[in-house]
């Protein structure tokens, strides 16, 4: 265990890092030569239907895989120190590796059946990881996560059955040619629904903050590049087909609302990990909404840059939580930049990248997205959802920064903050580097020609306006005194609504199960323990017992009566015999 070289973490890290390098070079090669490789392995074939395992390697899947491998390798390296005293470290690492493997299956396959393999694998392994710390809260969160994702699995299954029409499940062949088909429209709607569950869009978003019960390295992996981006990635692959669909407009609205909702809720939240989770939700909403406007490569771009700085953010949060004696409440933190400057450096840079401070990773993608939003033909509501959410991102990021870095340290008078865990720091510096350069690197790599953007001055400056306002608000709200916080009680219901994610956790847990549990109870009482009991098992038993008792009364007669009745019976027969003749 203590020997770094031969620990499971180091071996996995090395393997994943090598895979990352391989993918990186292949990606460069593929982009340069504009290559695509499609491999098919036919597993079985019947009635002109073939079940195949397909592998599609193009620059997109290779790039995405490279990022997943990079983040997972770094996360596993980080776990070496973070999960140091964990008894079941091997299980943990194996689960993470399985998670990465499922994600690979999902990324490389253009076949809906083999996608389901990765999709279900993600759901299952994410459940195992969320309940990794075995307590009641984790179990609830895990169940919520698993069941929400299960809805998406069901939609994928429905898609599989719909695609039986076409004789193959390789969806890429049908995206263009079957575009106007009614069945294809149904398939598209199902795919959108499935992606909405995986990427936690509005009706299904309650599982994402709940999944924070998982260990922090898992959160870093799940919320950056793997689980939640699976839905976005699937929609990116399907985007060609979905463009003309009405359902995509609905997705635009829902994802815009998700972005807005998550931004507001993050401002009410005091749990460090939950704030970051909600910011992930907000960014996912951003990706989904830009995707539903028909710009998949921008969504992919933001997905990748976001993966970098979000993983870094979670890793910083992990270190901070470790040092804070496992306390996640940001009100106890403050002034930590004085004690742990390197971690604070990473934290601040990733936070700023999230906000879109120029020339960090997030800037390239977010700025481009928002300018294209201003550029395109949208109604006012969607427009304001985008810009308000951008402001809100700034808002909660600055609030978080102020709470963590600037204010007074509020935990205990005796504490031990140190910045010398070099295993964690080394892994974080990799991502720090990436979250600085990945924006420019990707924008040069992905886009073969720059977007032509053409805006009036105020619209162009809109991003800066909302960001400045958001940052100022974040600064002010972090200095808010306790009696001002109490004034939220004046708008108690509104505050409840906003800070409880628009009641979505309640709706998808208690609100959903309440009526069914009631119904189940009444059915249990009336049918199972009531009528069906009376008319089958128990009632039968009662009737039989009654008859049996009735019969036993006859059995208790005097012996003579039996004999006498037999003789009478014979006598009657004899008489009838006589008179018959």
């Amino acid at each position: 265990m203590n020997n770094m070289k031969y620990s499971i973490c180091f071996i996995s890290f090395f393997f994943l890092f090598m895979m990352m390098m391989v993918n990186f070079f292949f990606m460069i090669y593929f982009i340069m030569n504009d290559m695509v490789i499609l491999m098919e392995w036919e597993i079985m074939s019947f009635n002109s239907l073939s079940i195949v395992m397909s592998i599609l390697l193009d620059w997109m899947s290779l790039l995405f895989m490279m990022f997943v491998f990079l983040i997972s390798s770094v996360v596993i390296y980080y776990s070496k120190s973070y999960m140091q005293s964990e008894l079941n470290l091997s299980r943990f690492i194996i689960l993470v590796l399985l998670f990465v493997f499922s994600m690979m299956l999902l990324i490389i396959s253009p076949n809906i059946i083999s996608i389901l393999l990765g999709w279900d694998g993600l759901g299952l392994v994410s459940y195992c990881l969320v309940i990794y710390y075995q307590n009641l809260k984790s179990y609830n969160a895990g169940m919520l996560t698993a069941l929400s994702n299960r809805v998406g699995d069901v939609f994928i299954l429905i898609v599989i059955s719909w695609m039986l029409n076409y004789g193959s499940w390789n969806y890429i062949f049908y995206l263009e040619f079957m575009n106007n088909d009614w069945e294809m429209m149904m398939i598209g709607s199902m795919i959108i629904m499935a992606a909405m569950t995986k990427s936690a869009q509005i009706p299904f978003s309650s599982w994402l903050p709940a999944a924070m019960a998982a260990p922090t390295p898992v959160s870093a992996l799940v919320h950056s590049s793997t689980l939640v981006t699976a839905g976005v990635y699937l929609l990116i692959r399907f985007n060609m087909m979905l463009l003309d669909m009405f359902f995509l407009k609905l997705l635009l609205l829902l994802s815009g609302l998700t972005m807005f909702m998550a931004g507001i809720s993050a401002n009410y939240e005091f749990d460090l990990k939950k704030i970051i989770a909600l910011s992930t939700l907000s960014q996912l909403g951003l990706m989904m909404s830009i995707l539903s406007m028909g710009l998949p490569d921008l969504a992919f771009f933001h997905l990748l840059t976001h993966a970098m700085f979000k993983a870094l953010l979670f890793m910083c949060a992990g270190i901070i939580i470790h040092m804070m004696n496992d306390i996640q409440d940001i009100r106890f933190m403050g002034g930590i930049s004085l004690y742990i400057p390197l971690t604070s450096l990473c934290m601040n840079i990733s936070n700023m990248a999230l906000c879109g401070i120029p020339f960090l990773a997030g800037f390239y993608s977010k700025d481009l997205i928002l300018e294209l939003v201003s550029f395109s033909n949208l109604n006012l509501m969607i427009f304001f959802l985008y810009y308000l959410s951008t402001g809100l991102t700034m808002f909660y990021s600055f609030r978080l920064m102020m709470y963590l870095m600037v204010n007074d340290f509020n935990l205990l008078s005796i504490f031990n903050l140190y910045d010398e865990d070099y295993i964690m720091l080394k892994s974080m510096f990799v991502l720090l580097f990436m979250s600085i350069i990945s924006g420019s690197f990707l924008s040069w790599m992905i886009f073969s020609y720059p977007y032509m953007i053409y805006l009036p001055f105020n619209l162009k400056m809109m991003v800066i306006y909302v960001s400045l306002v958001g940052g100022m608000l974040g600064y002010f709200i972090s200095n808010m005194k306790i009696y001002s916080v109490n004034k939220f009680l004046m708008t108690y219901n509104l505050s409840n609504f906003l800070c409880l994610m628009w009641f979505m956790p309640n709706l998808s847990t208690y609100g959903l199960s309440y009526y069914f549990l009631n119904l189940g109870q009444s059915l249990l009482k009336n049918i199972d323990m009531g009528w069906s009991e009376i008319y089958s098992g128990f009632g039968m038993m009662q009737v039989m017992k009654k008859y049996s008792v009735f019969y036993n009364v006859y059995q208790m007669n005097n012996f003579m009566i039996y004999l006498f009745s037999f003789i009478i019976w014979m006598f009657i027969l004899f008489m009838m015999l006589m008179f018959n003749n």
Partner: protein
Amino acid sequence: MYNLFNSNKIFFFILFFSTLISISSNSWFGCWIGLEINLLSFIPLISNSNNLFSTEASLKYFLTQSIASLNFLFTILIKLTLMKNFEMNNFLTIMMNSSMLMKMGSVPFHFWFPNIIEGLSWLNSFILMTWQKITPLILMSYCMNNYFINIIIILNIIIGAIGGLNQTSLRKLMAFSSINNLGWMIMSISISETLWIFYFSMYSFMISILCFFFYILNMYFINQLFINNMNFLVKINILINFLSLGGLPPFIGFFPKWIIINFLINNNMYLMTFIFVMMSLIMLFFYIRISYSAIMFNYMKNKWFKIYIKNKYFLFINFFSFFSITGMILSTLFFY
């Protein structure tokens, strides 16, 4: 085994041969003589001067059997005088059948049967439940009134199932089970004699294991199964043999019932089949109630006795139980 190898030997001999006399006789009088000898040889077997109950049982047995024989004799005499020993009449067959039913303890005249078996040892109960039924059944098959007999069969099946439901005495329970199985036997003998032989031999086989078992363990009531600390294998053997008796498929008891049901359906007797199957469900219920609670519910309870069975008979039991389990599967070897 107390009276099998002592002075009662001669009565056993007479008991067996009286049955053979009556079933191989070619006149009704010969049958009657066989029946009377049978009665008079069974009485000394069951009466025990040390036991009041068995004395009472022998007296009751004598009364019922003699009245039945009397009526049988009366019937054959009427047949001789009125019908010139030639033709049969509906009422005459009913009379004949009734007296035979009385003799074997079938339903409308069965009230003596649980009463008497309550005073008998397990070995005598076994003889009463199996061997003593051969003669009346064979004699009844000579002149059957089908309308009457069908009603009797249904009554047998139902009373046997329902009467045994509330019993706590194992002998009474076996008596009612025997009444139920008598319904099956009458049905089988009314279809074909070979079928009856098959059913009867299988039934005797299963009953013999159970009776021998209870005889060894000296068990007369259900709660004795619960309060004794028995080997688990012993209990499992009891369960298997009870299930076999009830006619649960993998065991051999299902085989004769299966064949009878097959014949019933071939003869379009669907209602009969339905009643048979449903009532054997109730039979199975109380068989299971005995053995299941002995194995499952009361297994961990405090026991009052500890029984060590380490004698040679136990090997027999295991051997027969083996047949009970695998008999049906092994029997397929005959039909390749």
